């Protein structure tokens, strides 16, 4: 590894670290689950257990809320990254199933952009 390598790697790492707080989710006390899919957005409470079938681009996506956590239990997509993401509960955390165009996020229903994040 040469000096030029180290400089390039250090610059990219610094930019990534500097950008982290800018894109990090605000840790609001919201306990809603926002399920956004091609057919629209559903907001459900995180503390009420339930199973939700979302129609994704490639087929149905099953979202399960239980014990204050939410996970994707079943999805017809190639890699099942969404299912392997496990259960989330922290505000701002999210699970994405890109092939199906479905995003499951813990947070307030109306807040979907980065505009309010810079503090």
């Amino acid at each position, binding site marked *: *590894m040469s000096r030029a*390598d180290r400089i*390039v790697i250090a610059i990219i*790492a610094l930019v990534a*670290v500097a950008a982290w707080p800018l894109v990090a989710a605000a840790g609001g006390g919201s306990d809603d689950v926002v399920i*956004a899919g091609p057919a629209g957005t559903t907001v459900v409470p995180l503390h009420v257990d339930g199973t939700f079938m979302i129609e994704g681009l490639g087929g149905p996506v099953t979202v399960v809320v239980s014990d204050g956590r939410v996970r994707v239990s079943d999805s017809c997509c190639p890699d099942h990254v969404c299912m392997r993401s496990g259960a989330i509960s922290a505000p701002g955390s999210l699970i994405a199933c890109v092939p199906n165009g479905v995003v499951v996020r813990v947070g307030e229903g109306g807040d*979907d952009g980065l505009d309010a994040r810079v503090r």
Partner: protein
Amino acid sequence: MDSTLACARTSSASAAAVTPSRRVALIAALLASAVVLGLVESTLPSVALVPWLRIGLANLAVVIALVCFGVRAAGLVSLGRVVIVAVATGTLWSPVFAMSVGGAVASLVVMAALSATLRGITPVGVSAAGSAAHVLAQFVVASVLVDTPSLLVLAPPSVLAALALGAVIGLIAQAVVSRMPWR
């Protein structure tokens, strides 16, 4: 390290000694290697908590192609692999395909620009930067596809991980290139 740098410098001169047909065969072999490396990687289990994180084994073939045969060969290996994998898995023109193309193009542009402009850079830095660009582009494409900018929350830690994994791939590429028998 110096010997590998010397290899990177002399490889363009010695690559000229490689006959055109040999060059085509070697680039095709790299393309085939990229496809196989990608397949091997897809059989590896994904890590819990970060299932979207990949090692980027296929980039090994792209970096080698870039160092030994230049940007056009690297583009052929990278984009050729993306199309072949998409046709084989039936994901051509799907959201996954868009992410693959976005990542491959961003990675290629960054790697080509760095290796052309920065003197003294080795495959390690090139691969690390390309890997970071690949991941960032994939997150941007994905957040556009699912129309959720907050997906970018996951980008900074993933870029940091990609830097480390890319550097390791670069080290391997360096070791492979320095042992090329046809130099």
